[in-house]
């Protein structure tokens, strides 16, 4: 991520300097984001098309096995993937990149020629909703608990929370999900797991009605809990160590000496500075949660992009697999970009140093 060093930009005329450097910082970040998307798109292309035993070869084999003649199979596979197999590889690659830029990922092989883009736009809102909400909850709760741990360090509360956080951090989200289903749904019977399958009840009309909101919350609650439990541990531990470090800073001692109230020191001095580095973690966390969503959405039969990716993998539906994977990557890369901007906006030091680096 971004490197933090002391800035030596005082020689610039202040306002002018900030403006030029900030703009180049934004541009540099954007260039990196676009580069990572290109990188992933290229890797995907090679996996799907150019490697021996690539996806398109398997697809052709599959179709021939179903009794389609080899020429037809070749044409069908090419049509599904949106690739012209008769062109040289370089032309195919450019065509493919062009399609990706236009959001055209071909057609599904299993779901009767449904457009992949359409399939993705249908499920994407659910993932954005569940992942976004869980991120917000985790961020707020993790910061609160981490601060408590730092303030009460070496008391029983700290030991309890630290061990809890370390344990949650060590156990994989998939196992936490299984445990949640097993205990909440089956053994203690707190929630009706079977009725909770899907992102909303069938027959429910999407819209800003109370019934709809209650319904989607009912479907997402256990998944949300699992997301929060599986990622909160590292937030708590990091917030604790940040807060402890900040509490040792001179300016906090000075603030105490000036007789400021504890509440004021916590909000204006300690909290702000300790929270700042956590914003870079937000980006990492997005990738982590989205990665975990492939398993968790499948486990909870929650129809989001992770579920779609898992299903396309198990059905060997390569066009869908390629499209979903690209969309997931692009979303995560842009979430990173956004987090970088937010961080640069919150902490001017980053922006200033970012330019002349």
């Amino acid at each position, binding site marked *: 991520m971004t490197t933090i060093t002391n800035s030596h930009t005082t020689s610039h005329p202040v306002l002018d300097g900030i403006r030029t450097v900030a703009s180049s910082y934004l541009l540099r970040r954007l260039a990196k984001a676009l580069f990572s998307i290109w*990188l992933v798109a290229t890797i995907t292309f090679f996996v*799907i098309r150019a490697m021996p035993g690539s996806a398109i070869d398997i697809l052709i084999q599959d179709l021939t096995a179903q009794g389609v003649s080899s020429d037809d199979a070749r044409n069908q596979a090419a049509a599904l993937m949106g690739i012209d197999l008769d062109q040289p590889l370089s032309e195919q690659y450019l065509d493919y990149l062009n399609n990706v830029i236009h959001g055209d990922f071909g057609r599904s092989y299993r779901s009767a020629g449904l457009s992949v883009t359409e399939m993705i736009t249908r499920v994407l809102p659910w993932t954005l909703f569940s992942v976004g909400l869980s991120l917000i909850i985790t961020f707020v709760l993790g910061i609160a608990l981490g601060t408590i741990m730092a303030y009460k360090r070496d008391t029983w509360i700290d030991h309890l929370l630290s061990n809890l956080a370390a344990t949650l951090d060590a156990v994989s989200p998939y196992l936490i999900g*299984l445990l949640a289903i097993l205990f909440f749904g089956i053994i203690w019977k707190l929630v009706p797991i079977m009725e909770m399958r899907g992102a909303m009840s069938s027959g429910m009309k999407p819209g800003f009605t109370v019934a709809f909101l209650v319904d989607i919350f009912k479907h997402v609650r256990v998944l949300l809990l699992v997301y929060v439990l599986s990622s909160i541990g590292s937030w708590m531990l990091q917030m604790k160590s940040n807060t402890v470090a900040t509490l040792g800073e001179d300016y906090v001692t000075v603030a105490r000496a000036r007789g400021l109230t504890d509440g004021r020191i916590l909000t204006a001095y300690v909290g702000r500075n300790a929270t700042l580095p956590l914003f870079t973690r937000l980006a990492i966390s997005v990738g982590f949660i989205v990665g975990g969503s492939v*398993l968790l959405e*499948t486990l909870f039969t929650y129809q989001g992009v992770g579920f779609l990716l898992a299903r396309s993998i198990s059905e060997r539906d390569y066009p869908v697999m390629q499209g979903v*994977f690209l969309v997931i990557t692009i979303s995560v890369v842009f979430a990173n970009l956004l987090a970088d901007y937010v961080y640069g906006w919150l902490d001017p030091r980053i922006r200033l140093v970012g330019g002349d680096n």
Partner: protein
Amino acid sequence: MHIPVDFIDSFWRESVKTFKILSRNKMGLFGFIMVILIILISFLGPLLWPPETSANVAEINKGISADHWLGTDFQGQDNLRKIINGGKDIVTIALLTGVLSMLIAVVVGSFSAFIGGRVDGILMDLVNIWLTIPKFPLLAVLATVLSLKDVITLSVLMALLDWPALARQVRSQVLSLKSREYIEAATMLDLGTPRIIFRELLPNMMSFIAISTIFEMTHAIYQQTGLVFLGIVPYSSANWGVMISAAERRGVLFNPQAAWSILAPMAAIVLFQLALVSFARSLDEIFNPRLRTGV
């Protein structure tokens, strides 16, 4: 060839010292002993208790009893015996992935730190870009298309995807060590780069390398159980991950009586991961003086 011997010697001394400090930390010692036990049971256990070959219809989905300490599964086979036989793949993949990715990371990370300048900048930019790509979906897609069949290729693939994050950490470690006085003194005495790397740098990074390797191992365990759950790598019938997803697929999750068949392999995985992490965390506490004083 005295440099490797020196290196092994200092590595050995470092290990003995580590164990001495470790035995002072209860959680760390517990973790260490558990890890060794699980590895031993996974590799020697199958020789003493070979896997059951036939199903036992009379004993399907039983709870715990004197005969079956961890109950029986949907085929009436003993869960404990399956656990003993199912650890080898998990442990092997964890070890292989951890060591392989750390090896690549140490080479690339220290190379980047030593060479510095533009090469370093480009390498680290590439690493940072790589880190923004969600790894698990990438792994799942690659493993599907490559249709991996065995433990080694899977470990290699995971190591290839995971090393960049470790390399960045190694680089910052090397950079901070490089500016220490004893390394500068060694450089000024012109002791030679291999000697500086093997005698001065690496021994001082051993704890860091051990900790990162261990965390990478837990990550590899998580990833491979995930791949098994998605049905991408069915490389062996007896494996904790396979036990979980088989139980899940058989609807065991919805049959409270059969809960043991899913809890047992989960407990095995969690225990292994927790043992690894508490061992690693205690190393962290021992070698990081700021944590040792209990800030």
